[in-house]
């Protein structure tokens, strides 16, 4: 599949953005600068980017606790996002959401949900809306493998299938849900098989290969726009960090962790783009420098921003 140069470069930059963002958030968290919990998506960047490279700004996504990457790929700026995660007034959600509930309709993000499974029916609702309004928008729910066992996944997927909605369920299968391996809590060996219970296509792709992700989603989007209904895509990927920062993921074998480091999607994509002549080593380095600078600014912005005033606790409950 041919992807324009501009888009390829956007994809590369965005993957780097996510990695830089996540690693920096991780170190800021370790330094005690971030309250609460953070779940990082380092290593899973090809999924967020491969999906969102197929979406317009007015397409919809829902996301989960490991959502930073999805939101960056969908267009949320690093600065207000960082400020949000720092709990600052200038955060995209005024510090009320934090890492786990980032939401911005301006870029089509209906919200990151902390209750596993919820992203599915909510995105299905957005897809329904697109269909009823006669628009050609699509909606994507990002979920993890653990979420496949929630009732909401089932009800949402069935509804989307029955109504042939322009919906994609994108499952990042990093094989772990907290400390629990997906293959210990289902009887499936091939997760994408779950789609068969709904009569819709179930596709498995290498979730560390952004091209593979891009192509699968491209097809799913085309299918959605043709009114042929939803697609379930399993992106086989892995988690470089623990479940949340502070989790030593001792439940994983060293081999599992080492394997994951080796599968890093970013050097792989970089190499490919250079081979393809899309960019040079120097250009790639330049992108990385720019992104780091951007993140530096974002952290500075967040640090220098004030916390919200106490009165803010009473606002925004109702429209």
């Amino acid at each position, binding site marked *: 599949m041919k992807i324009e140069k501009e888009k390829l470069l956007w994809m590369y930059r965005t993957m780097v953005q996510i990695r830089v963002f996540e690693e920096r958030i991780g170190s800021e968290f370790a330094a005690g600068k971030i309250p609460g919990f953070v779940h990082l998506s380092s290593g899973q960047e090809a999924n967020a980017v491969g999906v969102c490279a197929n979406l317009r700004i007015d397409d919809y996504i829902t996301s989960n606790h490991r959502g930073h990457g999805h939101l960056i790929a969908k267009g949320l700026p690093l600065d207000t996002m960082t400020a949000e995660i720092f709990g600052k007034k200038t955060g995209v959600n005024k510090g009320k959401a934090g890492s786990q509930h980032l939401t911005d309709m301006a870029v089509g993000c209906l919200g990151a949900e902390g209750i596993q499974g919820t992203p*599915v029916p909510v995105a*299905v609702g957005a897809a329904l809306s697109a269909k*009823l309004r006669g628009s050609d928008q699509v909606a994507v729910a990002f979920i993890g493998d653990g979420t496949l066992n929630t009732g*909401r996944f089932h009800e949402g997927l069935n509804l989307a299938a029955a109504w042939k909605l322009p919906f994609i369920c994108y499952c990042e299968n990093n094989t772990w849900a907290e400390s629990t391996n997906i293959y210990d809590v289902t009887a499936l060996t091939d997760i994408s098989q779950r789609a068969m219970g709904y009569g819709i296509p179930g596709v498995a792709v290498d979730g560390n290969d952004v091209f593979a992700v891009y192509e699968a989603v491209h097809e799913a989007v085309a299918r959605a726009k043709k009114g042929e209904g939803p697609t379930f895509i399993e992106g086989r990927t892995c988690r470089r960090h623990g479940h949340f920062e502070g989790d030593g993921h001792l439940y994983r074998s060293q081999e599992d962790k080492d394997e994951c480091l080796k599968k890093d999607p970013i050097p792989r994509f970089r190499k490919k783009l250079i081979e393809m002549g899309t960019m040079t080593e120097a250009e790639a380095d330049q992108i990385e420098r720019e992104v780091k600078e951007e993140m530096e600014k974002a952290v500075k912005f967040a640090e220098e921003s004030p916390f919200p005033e106490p009165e803010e606790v009473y606002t925004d409950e109702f429209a």
Partner: protein
Amino acid sequence: MEVSEITYLQAIHDAIDEELARDDKVFVFGEDIRQWGAPLGEMKGLFKKYGPNRVLDTPISETAMIGAAIGSAATGLRPVVQIMFAEFLSVCWSDIFNAMCKPRYMSGGKIMFPVTILSYCGAGISAAGEHSGCLDGMEMSIPGLKIVAPSTPYDAKGLIKSAIREDNPVQVFYHKKLILGGLKGEVPEKEYTIPLGKADVKRRGSDVTVVATMLMAHRALAAAEKLKARGIDIEVIDPRSLAPLDKETIFKSLEKTGKLVIMVEEPKAGSSASEIAAVVAEEAFDLLKAPIKRVCAPDTAIPFTPALEKVWMPDEDNLIKAVTEIM
């Protein structure tokens, strides 16, 4: 003002019908709407009139239904979702509590969900333990949710229309016994709405303030006549909205009576009566001359047999007893 007499069922129907006609962003979905017009028939004819893009039948998937409402509301539509029996709300409780009622706040105002949920509630037709409940008090524990519970055709129509126009999630309860009993009442022929959060004094009186909702409002009015014969004159206030609650109307009545009985069709613990009592004991204590009585159901499931269901449901005698005790 021209008025006509219509049933509670018709009022519900007309409210939805008029809002579907008025605003093409409004659509309605749920189980068994297309063919049945919903199990009790309040949506009869709507599918024929508005077609499959405005009136949709769903699978038995309440969590997906609320999800669909949330997602479509956030993206420009105004969904009206029928979650049949009030108990089924518990099936999608997280979806209502977490996914629908929190993000407005959590997002710092970056999203809004103009969703209306419609549900049947109430006992008295031997529908047994999972199809007879009122969950008003339980839902009052959910921040971000508005709750209305109309007792008359007039209130039903006016409140449902307001609920559909509201930019926040609203739960509408209607009482099965008022539907199946064929309750009638006058309704203006001209369009009207009733603001959410405005109580209605259904009967003026000076001795005791009785706050009662839905079927219980009718029982309170019936008890009022019997109490009158005994020389006790009760004021009957129907809050109509439980959230927001019109405290002022209750406090004003208490200025006159100093005595409060709250009658609702829920197990007492954690009921809407408890919340109303707590508000009064906190904010209008000085007006009180007697204990706040709650006339509620026992803290049990709802028995099937009419012999027990009748005892389970609060009735006129329970209210008369409570009122008499504080006279």
